[in-house]
């Protein structure tokens, strides 16, 4: 009980709508709501800040709740994250990303898309 009160006091300081701030996502492939034709999807996310790649992650969530981390591909630019996923079945997917900009700000988000035929 005491612990929960103490946490409430901590939360007093937190704007309830506060979310992580930047790096912000500028462009995404696939775009939110896109229908990707085929079994394979190439993913490319472009941000407004240079990223620390060691702390940048992507994972793919399937409709049954299973998730799979995606391996990041090496790219020349520090503002781009690239990956791909293959042998995907038809249906809805959620791409979750989490990044850390070099100035120490973290951000996260998700992109919903479908694999269609």
């Amino acid at each position, binding site marked *: 009980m005491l612990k929960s009160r103490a*946490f*409430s006091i901590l939360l*007093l300081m*937190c704007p309830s709508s506060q979310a992580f701030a930047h790096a912000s996502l500028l462009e995404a492939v696939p775009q939110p709501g896109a229908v990707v034709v085929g079994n394979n999807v190439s993913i490319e996310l472009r941000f407004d800040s240079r990223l620390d790649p060691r702390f940048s992650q992507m994972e793919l969530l399937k409709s049954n709740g299973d998730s799979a981390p995606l391996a990041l591909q090496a790219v020349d630019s520090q503002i781009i994250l690239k990956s791909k996923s293959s042998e995907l079945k038809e249906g809805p997917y959620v791409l979750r990303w*989490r990044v850390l*900009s070099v100035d120490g700000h973290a951000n996260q988000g998700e992109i919903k898309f479908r694999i269609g035929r």
Partner: protein
Amino acid sequence: MQAFLSIYSVIDWILRGVSATAQTLAVGGATFFLLTLTPLKLGSRRPALERFCARLVFSSASASCVVQLLAAAALIAFLIGSTGAGLEIAASADAVSFHLISAGAALALACLVRAAHFSKPRALFALSLLLVGSHLGVTHAASWMESSLSLLMAEMLHLLALATWIGGIPYFIASLRMIDDGDERRCLARRFSITSLASVTAIVATGLFMAVPYTGSLERLYQTTYGLLLGSKVVLLIMLLCLGAINFLAIRSRRRDKDPINRVPAIAEVEVGIGVIAILCAAALASSPLATATEAARPDAAEVSAHFQLAWPSLKSPAYAEVSAAQPNAAVTLADPEIANRSEADVAWSETHHHHAALVVIVTGLLALLAHSRRLRPIAQHWPLLLLGLAGYLVVTADEEAWPLGKIGFFQSLTIPQIAQHKLMIALIAGFAFCEWCVQSKRFKSAWPSYVFPLMIAAAAAFLLTHYGHTGRKEEVFIQISHTPIALLGVIVASARWVELRIGSTTVSRLAGVVWPIAMVAAGAFLLMYRETV
């Protein structure tokens, strides 16, 4: 750990704000010594003055070191918790390295002034540069899309100029208080005003240089959180320039009978306060997505003008039975009431009670103004009781889903962040209103309780200016547009009241005594225009 991760961004903002303030004060002390004190021929007070300045630089550099270490530890814990990285990898993150270099530079600066005071000016200058330079690593300039030396240099100059001006003011105030000789005080003041003018020029030039790529267009100044925060900083800078101009004229004045230089320290104290609020705004800016990167959430000019079109305030509240919280089967969204589906009755309820509160604030300001009249003072001096009444009114109406009207009990409501924030604000209003009522009716023998009112108003204004999230919703921008003028008027209320209290009976203090109630009325008028979106 989950709790820590969910509030990390707020902890990070607080630590960045505090470390930037401490760093500004530490570097400001070094530049004050190098640029203002060193060239002057001061009499017997020089050793005592230098000892005082060295102590202040030591304290602020030590604070900067501790806070930078805390920021590094918090980021390491966040990275371990959120990405599953090991301690060694988390500690090697770029931003962690910059926090640690900053901590090292601050520690070295503290040790230098502790051991040798200001006898090694070159080392003092080099460590100050290192402290500011390492801070660059956690700014937008460091994470800009392409490495940009010009942006880094602009940021460096901006921070140095800020420290030289705002960070130098506390040392300037102390010097004016410690030096007795009128000519020496005048020379010191002239010297510092020249340094300050140069610093202001550098701040404006570098600020403009960085604003162009970070903002992208003029429209984004009112369409994005970043733009509105930047606008707030510009208004704070204008306030600082006005105060600086008053002090500049006082320093240049040739009048010797009522020496205007005597009022300089009090106005400089206000400059420090506004400067700290500007630094907190800068910390919020550093966390905010750049205006150029904000696309989805931007309301266009037509949406902004439609949202804020002039309309009569709504003073008739819907019955409580009509609002969602009173419906027996209504699912009250507790997790985030801001995004809950709100009915028209909910919006009308909220707007009406905002407008009632606005009327109370307007009447309070008018009474505070009338309290200057000898005939009306016996009644008008009790104006703080209106704010006490407002606190009671807000307890009942601010969160209709919670006690005393709603189904959520009082203690349970404190676990909901938004309601807890409201309750904290209400408690603060009640506290400072009661304190100010005691001050106005001369119930305190000591002078310090009279400063509670301006300090609390300044703290509330700083919170209102900087507390926005970055959830990418247009409503957030509308809320920020509504709150920003009220917060800036709060800064004027706090500043003018402080000047009135700190300067004896003079024209300036009498003017300040009229300005703050008028600013309060203006804040109430802005609150009267408060609108919500369904």
